[in-house]
């Protein structure tokens, strides 16, 4: 009898082919209140992390940008203004509920014309080779089942010289901060999830998935192995979040 290959879903081990469905359930559940919870959980600091991501993206008018796991469209909205009418921004998310919330929110803000929404799996991006000048994936990579496969897929659709930016929770750089952060994530976060979204389990998964995500150096080497060059990372808020950048040669 052959054993089914497993992967992590938070602290649980689940069959590889079940992870995507479980992650999807989490995000179907939190989609409607995703922005409110993000603001609440991070005290609004997620806006500053995303702001720095935009700075480092070096996006310019006329460029093509892919915002993977773009969720409710924070980055897409800003990119849409930067690339202007001659550029293009694709908001991609594997989750239909998140994508729907994102698309509605962009339309409500009058952002249209240079924005497309695509339901897509980061592991198998449905775009031709060498399409985008820049790809961002903010708080999405840790939910992807096969991260190496996703990084290679991103490399394929980037133009030579194009930039990949991975904004993701990471490992705090001080022991004290790590202790405080653990208390916050495993005690306060599920409590807030219960209170605001009536869904403690989804927020417990978020905390666990952060701990299971590769740390700064590991992710940097994964990007190098996938074929990116000049890989670097910037720790933010003491390493709670890190922004990784790599270039397609």
């Amino acid at each position, binding site marked *: 009898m052959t054993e089914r290959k497993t992967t992590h879903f938070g602290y649980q081990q689940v069959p590889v082919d079940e992870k995507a469905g479980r992650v999807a359930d989490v995000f179907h559940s939190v989609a409607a209140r995703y922005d409110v919870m993000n603001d609440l959980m991070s005290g609004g600091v997620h*806006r*500053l992390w995303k*702001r720095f991501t935009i*700075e*480092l993206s070096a996006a*310019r008018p006329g460029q093509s940008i892919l915002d993977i796991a773009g969720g409710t469209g924070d980055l897409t909205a800003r990119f849409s203004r930067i690339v202007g009418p001659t550029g293009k921004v694709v908001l991609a998310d594997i989750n239909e509920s998140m994508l729907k919330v994102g698309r509605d929110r962009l339309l409500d803000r009058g952002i249209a014309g240079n924005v497309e929404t695509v339901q897509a799996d980061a592991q198998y991006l449905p775009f031709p080779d060498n399409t985008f000048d820049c790809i961002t994936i903010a708080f999405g990579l840790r939910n992807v089942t096969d991260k190496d496969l996703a990084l290679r897929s991103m490399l394929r659709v980037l133009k030579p010289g194009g930039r990949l930016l991975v904004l993701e929770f990471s490992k705090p750089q001080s022991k004290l901060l790590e202790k405080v952060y653990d208390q916050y994530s495993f005690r306060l976060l599920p409590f807030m999830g219960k209170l605001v979204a009536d869904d403690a389990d989804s927020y417990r998964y978020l905390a666990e998935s952060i701990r299971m995500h590769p740390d700064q150096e590991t992710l940097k080497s994964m990007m190098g192995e996938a074929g990116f060059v000049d890989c670097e990372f*910037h720790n*933010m808020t*003491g390493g709670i979040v890190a*922004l990784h950048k790599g270039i397609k040669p």
Partner: protein
Amino acid sequence: MTDPTFRAGFDATLETAINSALRYDPGSRTRLAKLAGKVLGVTLTAPAMSLFLLIEEEEDGGYVEVHSRWQGEVTTELSGSALAFVQLLRNRDATPAKLGVTVRGSSALLAELQAILRDLDIDWEEPLAKLIGDSPAHQLGAGVRLAAGWLKDALGAAPKAGAEAVSEEWRMTPPEPQFEAFAEDVAAFVQGVDRLEARLQVLRSKFEGRDGADGGEK
């Protein structure tokens, strides 16, 4: 390196402050909209810091985006100490050269921005009206204007006298002309040192060239 979160927070705060002020002066927003697409780069030498102000346009006028990095074209680039920039913003007669601020690119953008800043006339009644309603806001605004006018008349030259007392009588701060002269001296000194350094560099490269040539002959 400073945590990028702090820098992003600083940029976001500055951007919000500028655009909040502009929101209540539609005249300035209209003038700013005409500068859409222009970029002002500011490099502070002390403390060392760079920021880029991008002027953008939306339906009801111009607004400003603050960035810590900018890869595109910069219309006007200013470089100088924070002290010099404060003087440049405060003093309507101040010129960048006088204060040791280096200007690269178009000086027209700088002149227009200085003019907009000088003429900024924020209508405080509008934000107030959102909080307490149109009529009370107008009454309050009129009252504040009346009180301000009365105070101005009643106190006359009091603020000036106060400032003079602080600087001339108590000697707690230097008088304004003395401060400006000092700032100009510092700027002239910095420029002198830069020139001297450049000359030394030229001399050094000349001597190194000659030494190399002598060595070759031996």
